[in-house]
C-alpha cells in the first residue's frame, strides 16, 4: 500500500513537473500534501533556472558545424557511418603463463563446436531466407521471367547478394540522390507531365525539403520533420505514371538496405514482393484507395490511383504515415 502511494505520488509529481516545463505554474497544479507542495515549488525554481549558452559560442559552433555539413567530406563521413563495422580484434599481449595447454585445448574444442553449430544454423537460416514467401511469391508471379540467384551466401551470410534477370517492364527506383532538384512543388510542376499530388495533411513540424524530378513521368517530394512528439525524421513521396511519356510500362523497384535480410523489394503487378525475406507486407485501405504497407525502419506505403503509382516512405509512426498517405491528392 505504501509502495503504491509512493508510486502515485511520484507519478503525479512527474506529470506536474512536465506541466511546469510546458509553462504552467506550481500554484495551478494538483497538490497532494505539504511536503509535495514544497517539492513542487522547488521544482518550479529549477524549471526557471535555465543556463543559456554564450551567444558567441552558439554562433561559432553553428558556423563550424555548418561548414562540416556543407563539405563533401562531411557527407562522405556520414555515409561511412552507414557501412557495417569491421570488428576490430583487440591485440592482446600473449599471456602464456596464465593459459595452460589444457585450457587451450578445451577452448579450442568449444570454439570448434560453436563453429560447427554456427555453420548449421547459418545454413538453416539461409535456407529459410530463400524459402520465405517473398521469394516464393515473386517466383510465382513471374515464373519464367525472374530468376533469383543467391551468391556468396556463405562467404558473408549476413550480406546476401542478389541477381535478378531484367524483366519486361521499366523499373522506377527511388534514388538516393540525383535528378533535378526544385525547392517547391510549383517549380517542379513546370517540367512534369502530370499534376504532382501533395499530402493535404502533414504532422506539425513537417515541411517540404525539395522536389526531385527523376524524369517527366516521375518525381519524389522529400519532407523533413522535427518536433518534440516525433523527433527528427523524414517522409518521401515518390509518384510516377504507370505508362511513361514514351509509352513504357513502369513498375516500382527499390532496395531497402544493405546488410539486412529485407534487401530488395519489388512491386510487380501492383503487389510487393520481398526478396531475401523481410517483414512482409500488409494490405491497407482508406476511403477510395487500397494499398500495401511494408514495415522497415519506419514504413513504406504503396498504392495506385488511376494511372499513377505512389510510394510513400516515412519514419513517422504507422498511424501518421497512413494519415499522410490517405491525404495525398
Amino acid at each position, binding site marked *: 500500500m505504501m509502495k503504491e502511494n509512493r508510486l502515485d505520488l*511520484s507519478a503525479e509529481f512527474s506529470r506536474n513537473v512536465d506541466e511546469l516545463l510546458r509553462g504552467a505554474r506550481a500554484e495551478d497544479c494538483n497538490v497532494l500534501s505539504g511536503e509535495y507542495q514544497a517539492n513542487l515549488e522547488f521544482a518550479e525554481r529549477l524549471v526557471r533556472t535555465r543556463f*543559456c549558452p554564450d551567444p558567441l559560442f552558439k554562433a561559432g559552433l553553428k558556423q563550424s558545424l555548418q561548414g562540416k555539413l556543407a563539405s563533401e567530406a562531411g557527407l562522405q563521413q556520414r555515409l561511412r*557511418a552507414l557501412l557495417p563495422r569491421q570488428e576490430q580484434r583487440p591485440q592482446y599481449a600473449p599471456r602464456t603463463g596464465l593459459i595452460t595447454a589444457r585450457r587451450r585445448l578445451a577452448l579450442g574444442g568449444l570454439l570448434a563446436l560453436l563453429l560447427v553449430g554456427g555453420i548449421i544454423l547459418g545454413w538453416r537460416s539461409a535456407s529459410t531466407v530463400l524459402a520465405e514467401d517473398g521469394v516464393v511469391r515473386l517466383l510465382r508471379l513471374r515464373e519464367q521471367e525472374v530468376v533469383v540467384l543467391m551468391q556468396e551466401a556463405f562467404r558473408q551470410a549476413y550480406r546476401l547478394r542478389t541477381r535478378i534477370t531484367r*524483366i519486361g517492364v521499366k523499373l522506377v527506383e527511388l534514388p538516393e540522390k540525383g535528378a533535378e532538384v526544385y525547392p517547391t512543388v510549383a517549380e517542379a510542376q513546370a517540367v512534369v507531365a502530370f499534376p504532382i499530388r501533395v499530402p493535404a495533411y502533414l504532422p506539425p513540424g513537417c515541411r517540404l525539403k525539395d522536389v526531385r524530378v527523376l524524369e517527366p513521368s516521375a518525381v519524389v517530394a522529400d519532407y523533413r520533420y*522535427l518536433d518534440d512528439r516525433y523527433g527528427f525524421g*523524414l517522409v518521401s513521396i515518390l509518384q510516377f505514371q504507370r505508362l511513361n511519356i514514351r509509352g513504357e510500362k513502369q513498375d516500382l523497384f527499390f*532496395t531497402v538496405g544493405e546488410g539486412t535480410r529485407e534487401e530488395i523489394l519489388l512491386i510487380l503487378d501492383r503487389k510487393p514482393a520481398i526478396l531475401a525475406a523481410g517483414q512482409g507486407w500488409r494490405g491497407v485501405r482508406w476511403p477510395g484507395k487500397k494499398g500495401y504497407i511494408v514495415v522497415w525502419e519506419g514504413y513504406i506505403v504503396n498504392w495506385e490511383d488511376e494511372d499513377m503509382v505512389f510510394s510513400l516512405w516515412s519514419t513517422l509512426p504507422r498511424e501518421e504515415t497512413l494519415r499522410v498517405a490517405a491525404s495525398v491528392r
Partner: protein
Amino acid sequence: MDEMTLPLRPSWARIQMAEVDEATFEELYEHYLPRLFNYMIYRVGNRQLAEDLTATVFEKALTRITTYRRDRGAFSTWLFTIARNVIIDHLRQQARAEIVNLDDLRAMAALGTPEAQYLRQEELARLYTGLNSLAEREREIIALKFAAELPNTRIAQIVGLSAENVGVILYRAIGKLRKRFEEEDE
C-alpha cells in the same frame, strides 16, 4: 533477357538522413542546443567544459545521424544518449573535483535569460553544490528532467530504468535537494 547485379548499398532513409540540408540543421540546432547545453551545465558545472562537450555531442550526432533509427526511439533519446556517453567518457578521464567551478557558474548566471536571473548568482552556485551532493543517478535524472526537459519514458530508456523508477528517484532527489537548501537557509 540480360541480367543485372543489384548494387549493395545503405538504405534509402539513412542516405537521406546523411543529406542534412541547411534548414534541417538550423532547426535541429536551435531546437536542441539550449537543452543540450543546459544538460551539460547540470552535469559538469563548468561553462567552458560544457561548451566543449556540447560541441562534441553535436559533432558526433551529425556524423552519426544516419545511424539514428526512428523505430528504436525518439530523436531526443538518441541525442541525449550520445550526450550521456560523452559525459561518462569525460568523467572517466577527469576527477570530479576538477570539474566544479563555482566562479564560472556565477559568471554564467549573468548570461542567462530573464528566467535564469530569477535566482541570484549565489543561489545558482548553491544549486550546483546541492546537485553535487546527490548520488550520480539522482543527479543524472534531475539533469535529464530539468535541463534536457525529457519525459520520464525517454529518461528511462536512456538510464536503463523503468519510467516508474525514474519518477520515484526524481521525487526523492528533489526532496533531498530542497531539504539541503532549507538547511542552508537556517
